[in-house]
């Protein structure tokens, strides 16, 4: 993206960390919910 190119490297790293964190958060939630479902089945 042209606009993203204008961001500094530091900014890009900051947002990439955010995106990774959010994906991991989703994975953790799905794992927790699976355990919850199995436990109360």
């Amino acid at each position, binding site marked *: 993206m042209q*606009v993203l190119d204008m961001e500094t490297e530091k900014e890009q790293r900051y*947002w990439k960390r*955010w*995106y990774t964190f*959010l994906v991991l958060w*989703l994975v953790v*939630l799905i794992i927790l*919910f699976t355990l919850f*479902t199995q436990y109360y*089945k």
Partner: protein
Amino acid sequence: MSSIDWMIMIGSLAAIIIYGLYQSRGTGRESYIMAGRQMPWYTVLLGIMATQASAITFLSGPGQAYTDGMRFVQYYFGLPIAMIVIAAVFVPIFRKLRVSTAYEYLEQRFDRNTRLLTGILFLFSRGVSTGISVYAPSIILSSILDINIYITNVLVGGLLIIYTYTGGAKAIAQTQKIQFIIILTSMAFAGVLLVRAMPKGIDFSDALYLAGKSGKLNVITTNFNIKDKYNIWSGVIGGFFLALSYFGTDQSQVGRYISAKSIRESRLGLLMNGLVKIPMQFLILLLGALLFSFYAIQKAPISFNDKAIGLTAKAAPTQYADLAIQYNMLSEQQAFLATTLVGLRHTDNPNATQQNLHLLRQTQKQIVQSRDSFQHLVTNYKVPAEANDTNYIFLHFVRNYLPVGMIGLLFAVVFLASWGSISAALHALASSTLLDFHKLISKKEIDEKQELRWARIYTLLWGIFSIIVAMFATRMGSLIEAVNELGSLFYGVILGIFLTAFFIKRVSGKAVFVAAIASEILIFIIYKLNVVGFLWFNVIGSLLVIVIALLVQQQLNSKNINRTP
């Protein structure tokens, strides 16, 4: 409702209106349409959440878990990934071009026709779903004032119009923040009170155990079935496309984050939404699962819609009496078996537990059949009341089991929730009508003052339209499903247009225009054939637009080559 409840309800609603009007004083065009592009990330976040979470979320959500279990939460699994894509791709483009509506970008990328077509698809789907959203708080007002639902539709819609008409985007953003904080606090309070209201000897963990054994804690369902509405696959894939389309292309949401003061604030608002949305929805649904345990022992009525019971008892007295006797017996049996099961939980007797559980599940099946028979009775005898009682379940608990003061506060919450989301939707409808249609079609140049006047007129007109739609919403069943199903019919195609715009540079306006119309027709055919669950419409719609646009573009290119001498 007691006088204290009335005071709390009217007091909190009046305070919000006054606050909104105070915040929006001296409103100009930029402030009315774009909130002055000054919002910090937390206002954006609360605005995004308040716009999505209408009264339907808080009324219908617990009811959905009560009847179908908690698997509805999977519907939000695609949302965090969608937030990432929007933050990384959509936001920089919208912000860089300083567009006022998402569709304005389409004219810059394609042509005017594509902008108009996408605007029409948005206006139609959002207009109708806003009408359905007006209906949700009307149910409550009708229930507490005991007046006709058509009158309450006008009352609720009317209040909303005044609120949005006067304040505009700035008032919406500022009040949504306060509204949402009140809403979350009150819902948490309701949860605590629900646990405390559990019958003697049943604690929180027992209630969870009972709900789990009754199949209500089915948060994750992994079996793949294309016709199934909620499973992890449709949730992650279909939910991703739906969230991408809703947050990335629906003006009621785009309007929230493009009014932030910088790209950073827009992104943070969106990403924080991705972080908190699923846990919040989980807790709302958990409330419904706990309600199930509560009513399993406290004996639920055959329908949570009191009006339906009263009218059916009059319309079909013999059938109703037979059904009521049978249902009461089953209810007693369920209460006994559920209490026994909880008691057995603390003993070491697996055989007895298994046997009891088997009987409980059988009884619960029969209870569901009885409730279905009652709903058929309501429909067959054309009783003028809603047969499906999903939207009334939480309301029934609030009215009958919560202490004085809390009832008023929770009723206020439902209004605040609906105001937050509907005012944002009305505002988006008005802005889009003005900027994407009026200014494009009208030959006369209009100044900022006239723009503000027209924005207000369109707010008024869309408000009236919503009230009219609300009048027809009475027999739609679970409102949360109705709104999402309706959205899915259009969102996939709208998203397809935007994805083509962002990622496939070689496709022209002409090709995408043809593709969008063809795809929308195909989506309606698929809907009529009833072959897939509604979340998949979002995936299919987007892919159809992209594929058809590429094919049409190829045809156009080969024609051009043939014409070239």
